[in-house]
């Protein structure tokens, strides 16, 4: 039995966060939360996370994108799989309907539209964690 996975969630909507956190905690994940991009980046620097749940529209605009970009430039952070959760159905989501999307900010990432079905969320997280560990073992 592997140890509990460490997840970080960056999202500025406390109610939404609570809903998601409840699903993840029940599924035996450890979840840390940052309610703004600044705290989120600080948390990423302080602790090694297995996966990041990232909101896009925060603060003055799409600040989640800024975090993803920063991560992609950091050799360590870019290995963390990212699940982008966004309430805004961007043109991209509109174009590809409900298919799994790869924003390609970092090596392993995907996009989901808020709100998410709990079961679907857990499936995606599991898949992302698996994909990331596969990528990591390929590199070794």
């Amino acid at each position, binding site marked *: 039995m592997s140890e509990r996975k460490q997840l970080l969630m960056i999202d500025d909507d406390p109610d939404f966060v609570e809903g998601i956190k409840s699903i993840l905690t029940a599924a035996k994940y450890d979840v840390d939360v940052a309610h703004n991009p600044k705290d989120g980046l600080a948390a990423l620097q302080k602790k090694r996370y297995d996966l990041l749940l990232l909101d896009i*529209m925060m603060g003055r605009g799409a600040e989640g994108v800024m975090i993803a970009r920063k991560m992609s430039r950091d050799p360590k952070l870019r290995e963390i799989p990212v699940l982008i959760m966004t309430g*805004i159905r961007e043109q991209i989501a509109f*174009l590809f309907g409900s298919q799994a*999307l790869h924003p390609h900010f970092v090596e392993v990432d995907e996009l989901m539209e*808020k709100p998410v079905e709990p079961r679907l969320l857990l499936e995606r997280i599991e898949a992302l964690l698996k994909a990331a560990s596969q990528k990591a073992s390929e590199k070794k």
Partner: protein
Amino acid sequence: MEKPSRILIIDDEEIVLDSCLSVLEGRGYEIATAPDGTEGLKKAEEFAPDLVLVDLMMPGISGFDVLEGMRGVDPAIVTIVITGYSTVESAVEAMKRGAFDFLPKPFTPDELRMIVGRGIERRRLVLEAIALRREREMLQQNFAAIISHELRSPLSAVQQNLFVLTAELDSQLDESQKGRFERLKSRIADLLKMIQSWLRAVSVPEGTIGENFVPTSVRTSIAKAIESVQPHATRKDITITDSSPESLPPVLGDEAILTEALVNLVGNAVKYTHAGGKVAVDAAAEPGQVVVSVADTGVGIAAEDVPFVFDAFYRGKVGPDAEAGCGLGLALTRRIIEAHHGTISVESEIGKGTTFTVRLPVHTPESASPPGEAAAAPTTLEPGDKR
């Protein structure tokens, strides 16, 4: 502090230039002069005047040509013509060509001051109008995104917690309580969907919709549209048949946006058809056009409603088992079809059903976009493989 208004005076008579300068001096204007039209236009480029006084009769290019040229420099420049021969005709002609006012020679200092003052005021108003229009355009462009976030966020948070609570309380809730949770979720899902379709209606600007048009198969859009509506039809026990031929001539368009239009039509057909009914989608190639029809055996549209079905926010009298809608689907559909240079029409009989017919012009190589443009589809994001 506001920067001083800039005035350019173009006149070949030095005495006129001088007297203008002395009259307008000390009133907080920044003034430049030019002895003829060609010089004047050149000066206007660098000086960027708010107001131009121009003599109509000058050697070289005429005052009329200067008016024309000023519009090229900045269409918001206020121009006032100085007419040496105070004929009404030339003044009227100048104003027809965009001059704000005219000043017949000889003029008194007061006349000049007054007309310049009014001209500067005019310029201020013109600039203000431009700024307001820009602001409105910006707001319009971003409106969809702003509203999307502001309206959807709280609803998403509520929905998210409903999802979680139903799962967490599953063993403690009785059937009636579970039913109420399900209805809450579906009401919020409808609301989210309604916001989305409204957003799409306002965020498909005619001006830009054609930018990514490429030769597109209507067949693909039909298949995708049916696929997207199928679950709804299955729930209502409605059969959707697709008789469109495998190959159809291409149309110039955006597949996703066309699909959106067809989703609206097929979705509407399902929405307004009783359980157990039929929706028939068909397509055919006719000379120069592809014709797509969506026919249902539904409630039909009353004759008095037919002329308005494509209007935004119009919803006809709905039957007892009609489903919720926001009255935007068809308005959006028409906008999409018209952006593709097509037409949409409807035939309906109350109680029997409705048929919508879309006609799209066939794409011919002559109407093709320049090479390269078609290939320049965005590549940064692509549909991912399902894992």
